[in-house]
C-alpha cells in the first residue's frame, strides 16, 4: 500500500514493490503485519518515533430519545497516515473541519479511533488501556489551543504544573515536587515565585507558558500542539514560538504542530502535512510543500493566505475557491476536493486518489517528488508567483 511508504525519498523501499499508486483505494486492507513490516523498513531519519497508519474516526450521528440508533457518521478523520521522527516538527495545516484537531485527540487517545493504528515505538497505542496507556501518556503530551480554558481556574499554578507528578508519582518524589514545579516555571520563562497564583492572574501568553510547563513536566518525547499560538496576540505569538523551539532543542522533543497559520507552521516545521476533509492531501518537507506544492488544494490554500506586503496585492496570483468545504458527514465520492477543484475530471469522482509520490515525478530529484493525493498533481509555485 502506498500509505505504508515511509518517506518520500525512500524510493527503493519494499513498499515500492507494490506499484499500486494509481489503483482504486483499498485503504482498510492495511493489516498489522504490513504495518510492522513498515516499521522495520530502514529510513534516512532513523526510526520514526510515531507511526500513524490509516487512522479513522467516525463520530456516529444518532437519533432517538432513550434508545439511540445510528443514522450516519461524521467522517472527521478518514484514513490518515504519517510518520513522526525523533526531534522533528511535523506541521499539520488545514481549514476548520479538516480533522486536524481530531487527529490530535486520537494521538492523545482522548478519543478512541474507529480504525487504524498509532505505533509509538512499535506499540499500537490505540488498543491500550489502563496501566499501559498511562505509561505511554508520560511520553506523549499536549499543548492546547485556548489558554483560557485549558487551565483549571480553581487550581493554583503550582497545583496545575504539579498535577502530572501526582498522577505519576514515580517521576518525582513528594518532597521534590515543589522545586521541580519552580524549575519548570523558570524553564518556560515565568517567575518561579508565581507558584501560588491562579490562572486568571496571568495574561494569555503567560497562561500558554503554564500549559507548556505542564506538558513538559513528565519529560515527554512527543508534544502535540493543537493551535498553540492562534489564541494569542500577534506580539506574543513570536515569544511562544521561540520558547517552543528552544525547548525542542533543549529536550530533544518531537512536535506535531497543528495550526492554520501557514507562515508560523512553515517557520517551525521540518515537514508539513496538508489535510482536507479528513484526509491528508499532501505531505512533504516544508520547502516541498510551500515552494513546490503539487496538490491543487495546497496551491489554493497557499495562494489565499493574505501576504503582509501591500505591494504584492497587484502582482500576486490568487486562486479563489468557490463554495465551502462540504460536510464531513457526507463527503464527495472519489477525491474529496473535487467539488471545489478547477482541475476536476470524471475520474476524480470515481477514483479516490492515493497519497503517494505522483507517477510523473517518481524517481526524479525534483522537489515535486513528494506524496500528494491528486490524480493530476503538477507543480505550481503560488507563493512567489
Amino acid at each position, binding site marked *: 500500500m502506498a500509505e505504508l511508504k515511509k518517506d518520500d525519498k525512500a524510493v527503493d523501499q519494499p513498499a515500492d514493490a507494490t506499484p499500486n499508486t494509481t489503483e482504486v483505494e483499498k485503504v482498510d486492507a492495511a493489516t498489522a503485519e504490513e504495518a510492522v513490516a513498515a516499521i522495520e523498513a530502514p529510513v534516512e531519519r532513523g526510526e520514526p518515533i510515531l507511526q500513524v497508519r490509516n487512522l479513522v474516526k467516525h463520530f456516529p450521528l444518532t437519533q432517538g430519545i432513550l434508545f439511540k440508533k445510528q443514522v450516519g457518521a461524521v467522517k472527521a478523520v478518514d484514513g490518515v497516515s504519517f510518520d513522526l521522527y525523533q526531534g522533528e516538527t511535523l506541521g499539520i495545516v488545514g481549514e476548520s473541519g479538516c480533522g486536524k484537531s481530531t487527529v490530535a485527540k486520537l494521538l492523545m487517545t482522548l478519543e478512541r479511533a474507529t480504525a487504524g493504528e498509532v505505533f509509538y515505538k512499535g506499540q499500537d497505542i490505540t488498543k491500550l488501556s489502563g496501566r499501559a496507556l498511562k505509561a505511554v501518556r508520560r511520553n506523549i503530551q*499536549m499543548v*492546547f489551543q485556548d489558554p483560557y480554558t485549558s487551565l483549571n481556574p480553581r487550581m493554583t499554578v503550582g497545583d496545575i504544573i504539579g498535577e502530572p507528578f501526582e498522577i505519576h508519582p514515580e517521576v518525582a518524589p513528594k518532597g521534590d515536587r515543589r522545586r521541580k514545579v519552580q524549575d519548570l516555571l523558570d524553564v518556560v520563562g515565568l517567575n518561579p515565585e508565581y507558584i501560588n*497564583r491562579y490562572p486568571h492572574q496571568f495574561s494569555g501568553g503567560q497562561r500558554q507558558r503554564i500549559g507548556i510547563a505542564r506538558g513538559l513536566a513528565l519529560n515527554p518525547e512527543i508534544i502535540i500542539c493543537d493551535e498553540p499560538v492562534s489564541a494569542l496576540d500577534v506580539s506574543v505569538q513570536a515569544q511562544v514560538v521561540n520558547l517552543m523551539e528552544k525547548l525542542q532543542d533543549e529536550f530533544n522533543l518531537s512536535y506535531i504542530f497543528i495550526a492554520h497559520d501557514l507562515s508560523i507552521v512553515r517557520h517551525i516545521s521540518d515537514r508539513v502535512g496538508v489535510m482536507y476533509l479528513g484526509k491528508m492531501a499532501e505531505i512533504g518537507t516544508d520547502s516541498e510543500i510551500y515552494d513546490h506544492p503539487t496538490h491543487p488544494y495546497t496551491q489554493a490554500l497557499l495562494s489565499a493566505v493574505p501576504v503582509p506586503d501591500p505591494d504584492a496585492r497587484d502582482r500576486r496570483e490568487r486562486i479563489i475557491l468557490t463554495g465551502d468545504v462540504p460536510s464531513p458527514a457526507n463527503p464527495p465520492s472519489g477525491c474529496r476536493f473535487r467539488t471545489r477543484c478547477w482541475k476536476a475530471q470524471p475520474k476524480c469522482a470515481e477514483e479516490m486518489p492515493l497519497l503517494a509520490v505522483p507517477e510523473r515525478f517518481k524517481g526524479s530529484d525534483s522537489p515535486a517528488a513528494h506524496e500528494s493525493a491528486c490524480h493530476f498533481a503538477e507543480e505550481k509555485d503560488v507563493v512567489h508567483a
Partner: protein
Amino acid sequence: MPDLIEKTPSGAAAAAAPAAEKREKPRSLWGDAWGTLRRNPVFIISALLILLLVTVSAWPGLFTSTDPRACNLDQSKVGSTSGHPFGFDIQGCDVYARTIYGARASVTVGICVTVGVALLGGVLGGLAGYFGGWWDALLSRITDIFFGIPLLLGGLVFLSVIKGGSVWTVIAFMIALSWPQIARIARSSVITVKQQDYVQAAKALGASTTRIMLRHVLPNAIAPVIVVSTIALGTYISIEATLSYLGVGLKPPTISWGQDISSAAQQYRNAPHMLLWPAGALSLTVLSFIMLGDAVRDALDPKLR
C-alpha cells in the same frame, strides 16, 4: 488580559489583574467571590437576618420565656398587652412566642430539604452529566416525569394519604419532588465543565476518573448548584408553609407559621394581628434567603449581572 476588558467590561476586571506586579497576592476564584460578597450590602443584610433566624430556631428560649403551648382561652384574640406585645391567638396562645418557636420548623425544613435536594440531585445529575449514555437518557426522562407532577397537588394527595404530619415526612416528601430541578442544573453544569480543555488535559496526563471528577469537575461545576439551592431554600420554606396552611404539612404539636397563618386567616377581620406576625416572619425569611441567593450568584458569576 486586557482583551477581556474589551469584550466584557463589566465582569472581567478581576481577571485584569496585572501579572507583572511582583507583590500581587494569589487570589483564588473562591476568594474573589468572598471578597465581592463581603462588600455587597444585600449580602450583609440577608446574612444578618439569616443568622438571627438560625439563632432563633436553635435557641428559641433566648428570645421568649413564654411557653407557646401554654394557652388560655380567656385571652383568645386579645391584642397587644404588656408582656405580650403581639397579642394572643384564637386559642389564647402568645403570638410572639409561637412566631419565635415556629421558626424552628421552617428553618429545619428549609435547610434539610436544600441539603437533601443538593446531595441527591447534585450526585445523580452530576453522574448522569459526566458519564452520559443510557444512564443520562434515563435520568432525563425521570426528571421529565417529576416535572409533570405539580408540587402542591402532589403534596395534597400524598401527604393526606399517608397522614404523617411530622417534620421528617414533609422533608422527605419535598426532597422527593424537588431533586430533579437541581439534577438538571448539575447535569448541564457538569456537561459544560466536562468539555473544557483542562479536563481533557488531565485525561491526557492519565488522571483517574475519580481524580478528574473531584479535582476538576466538582469545584468548577458546583457554583450553579450552590446558587440555585440558596435561592430555592426560601421557596422550600414557603412551600412548607403552604402545605401546612392547607392542613397536609406540619401538624400539631409541631408549631409552624403555616398552621398559624391558616388559623389566623379565618379571623382576619376581627384580629388582624394574629395573621400579621407569622406571615411577616415567613415573608422576611423567604426574602432573606432569596436575597442571599442573589448575592451569591452575583459573586460566583459576575457575568449574569
